[in-house]
C-alpha cells in the first residue's frame, strides 16, 4: 500500500437519544429538552408573534399563508386515509359561500357564520363525496377535481348568489389583528389536533385503510364510514379557511372555486412532505410568501415560481420537512478510510 493519498468519506450517525418510548417520557437534561422542544416551539412562537410585528401588505400575506396552510393540512389529512384529492377548492368554496350567504341574506355576524360555515361545509363535503368514497386513487381525484368547477359553472350560468358579480360588502372582522390571530390560531390548532389524531388509535385505523383496506375490513371496521368521517373533518377545516377568507375580503365571488385552491395545497404538501402535517404547514409557509415576493418580477413570476417548485420536488422528493428532520437527528463527520 502506498500511503500517498488519504481517502475520506462522510460518516453519518443518528443522534443517540431515544427520548420517547411509547408511553414514558424520559428527559435527561435541559439540553435534551431543548433538542426536542426547540424545533417544535420555535416556529409556533414565531407564528404567534408575527401578527403583532407584521402589518399592512405582509400582514395580508401572513393571513393568506395560513389560509393556504389550512387547505394543505386538510389535503394531508385526507391523504393519510388514502383519499387523494385534487379538489380542496370544493371545501374552500363551500365554506366561503355558506358564510357569505348567511351574512349577506340573513345578516348574521361572523361570530355565527364562521362556525356555521365550518360545520355546514364539513357536512356538505361529506354528503357530496360520501357517495364516491368507494372509488380509489385517480378516479376519486377526478371527481374532487370536477366538483368545484361544476359549482363555479352553475353559479356563473344561473346567476345564483350574485352570479358573476358575487356578493359585496360583507361584514368584516372587527380588526386586522383579530383576523390574523384567527388565521394563525386556526392553522396552529388544526396542525396540533391533526398531529395528535393521526397518532391515536383512530388515526392508526385511518392510516391502515390507506395501506390495505381489505385487511381493515376483515377487522370489522366500516372503512367507508371512516373515510366519510375523514372527509368531514378535512372539509370542515377547508370550509373554515373559506369562511375566513370571505369575511376578510368582505366579498364573495365564484373565484373561491378556482383551481388555485385545489392545486396550491397539493404543491405545498409536495414541497413540505406528506404524512406529518408539519410538512404541509411548512410547505405553505414557504410557497405563499415566495409567490408574493416574486411579484416584483412581473410576468416571469409564475415561471420562476414553477421552476423553484420543480427543482425542490426533484431535489427533495421526500419533502423538505422529512429531509430537515432527518438531518437534524444526524451527526455528520468526515473519517479516513484505511
Amino acid at each position, binding site marked *: 500500500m502506498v500511503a500517498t493519498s488519504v481517502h475520506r468519506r462522510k460518516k453519518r450517525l443518528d443522534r443517540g437519544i431515544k427520548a420517547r418510548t411509547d408511553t414514558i417520557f424520559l428527559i435527561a437534561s435541559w439540553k435534551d429538552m431543548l433538542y426536542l422542544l426547540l424545533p417544535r416551539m420555535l416556529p409556533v412562537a414565531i407564528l404567534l408573534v408575527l401578527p403583532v410585528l407584521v402589518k399592512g401588505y405582509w400582514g395580508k400575506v401572513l393571513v393568506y399563508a395560513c389560509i393556504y396552510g389550512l387547505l394543505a393540512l386538510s389535503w394531508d389529512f385526507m391523504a393519510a386515509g388514502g383519499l387523494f384529492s385534487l379538489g380542496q377548492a370544493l371545501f374552500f368554496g363551500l365554506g366561503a359561500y355558506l358564510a357569505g350567504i348567511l351574512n349577506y341574506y340573513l345578516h348574521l355576524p361572523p361570530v355565527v357564520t364562521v362556525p356555521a360555515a365550518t360545520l355546514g361545509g364539513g357536512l356538505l363535503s361529506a354528503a357530496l363525496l360520501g357517495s364516491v368514497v368507494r372509488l380509489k386513487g385517480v378516479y376519486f381525484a377526478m371527481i374532487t377535481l370536477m366538483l368545484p368547477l361544476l359549482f363555479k359553472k352553475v353559479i356563473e350560468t344561473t346567476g345564483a348568489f350574485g352570479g358573476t358579480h358575487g356578493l359585496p360588502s360583507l361584514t368584516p372582522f372587527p380588526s386586522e389583528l383579530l383576523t390574523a390571530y384567527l388565521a394563525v390560531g386556526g392553522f396552529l390548532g388544526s396542525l396540533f389536533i391533526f398531529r395528535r389524531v393521526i397518532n391515536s388509535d383512530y388515526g392508526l385505523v385511518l392510516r391502515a385503510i390507506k395501506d390495505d383496506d*381489505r385487511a381493515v375490513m376483515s*377487522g370489522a371496521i366500516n372503512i367507508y364510514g371512516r373515510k366519510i368521517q375523514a372527509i368531514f373533518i378535512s372539509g370542515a377545516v377547508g370550509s373554515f379557511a373559506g369562511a375566513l377568507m370571505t369575511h376578510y375580503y368582505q366579498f364573495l365571488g365564484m373565484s373561491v372555486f378556482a383551481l388555485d385552491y385545489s392545486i396550491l395545497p397539493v404543491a405545498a404538501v409536495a414541497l413540505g412532505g406528506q404524512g406529518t402535517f408539519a410538512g404541509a404547514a411548512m410547505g405553505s409557509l414557504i410557497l405563499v410568501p415566495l409567490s408574493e415576493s416574486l411579484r416584483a418580477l412581473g410576468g416571469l413570476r409564475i415561471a420562476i415560481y414553477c421552476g423553484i417548485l420543480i427543482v425542490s420536488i426533484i431535489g427533495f422528493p421526500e419533502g423538505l420537512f422529512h429531509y430537515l428532520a432527518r438531518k437534524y437527528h444526524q451527526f455528520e463527520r468526515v473519517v479516513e478510510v484505511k
Partner: protein
Amino acid sequence: MNGEPLLQVRDLRKRFGGVQAVFDVGFELRRGEFLGVIGPNGSGKTTLVNLITGFVKPDAGQVLLKGRNITGKMPYTIAGFGIARTFQMVRLFYNLPAYKNLIIPLCSSRFKKLRGGRYGERDDVAIELLDDMGFERDSLVPYKVAGSLPHGYLKRLDLARALALRPEVLILDELFSGMSMSEVASTLPLLEKFNQEGLAIMMIEHRLKELFRVVDRVMVLNFGIKITEGSPAEVMASEEVKKAYLGIQVELE
C-alpha cells in the same frame, strides 16, 4: 354437536370470466366443530372463503349465520357478525409494531359491544392476545416492527388479529404454509383450545398430516365442485380424492 348449525352455506356459485371458480358448494358448520377444506391448487378454496366473508359477491347461493342470511353483505359487516378470517398472503401493516396490528379489530364496534360498551386499554388487550401466540422465546416480539419479523411469526400475528374479534367462526386460509414444524406444533394446541371452547373453525390447508390430526370433518374441492365430505379416514380412503390429487386413477398395491 348441538342443535342448529352455526354457519350454513348453500349452493354457492361464482364464475370469473370463463372459469367456474365455485359451483354449488354447500356445507354446514356447528359450534365447536373443526372442518378441514382441502383440494388441489385452483380448486376454489380461497374463492369459497372470499364468498363467505363477503370479499367476493356470489352469483348464486346463500350464506346463513345462525339462520340469518348474510349473503353478499360487506366484509366488515360479516366480520362484525363474528366471522373472522386470516389471509393466505398475510395482510399486515409492516411499518407498525406487531401489537399495533391488533388495534384495528379492537377499534371495531363488535369489540366495543363485547367489552360492555368500553374499549378498555387497547394496547394492553393487544399485548395480552399476543402473549397466547407462542412468541415466548422472545418477549419483545409484540413490540418489534411487524416488517422485521420472520414469516412464521407474521402468520401467527395474522391469526391473533382474527382472534382479536372474538369470532364465533374462524376461517383460516392456509395458515400453516411457510411455518416451520415447531411453529405448527405450537399453534395447533392453541387452535384446539379455542375449538374446545366452542369456536367453529374452517381450515384450508395443504399440510394434510397436521390437518387430519385436528379436524372432525374434511371437505374436498376440485375444480370448484365439492367431491366429498366426511371424516379424515373416509376422505383418505376415497378413490375420487386420490384421482383429484394425482390426476389419474392409480392402482394401489
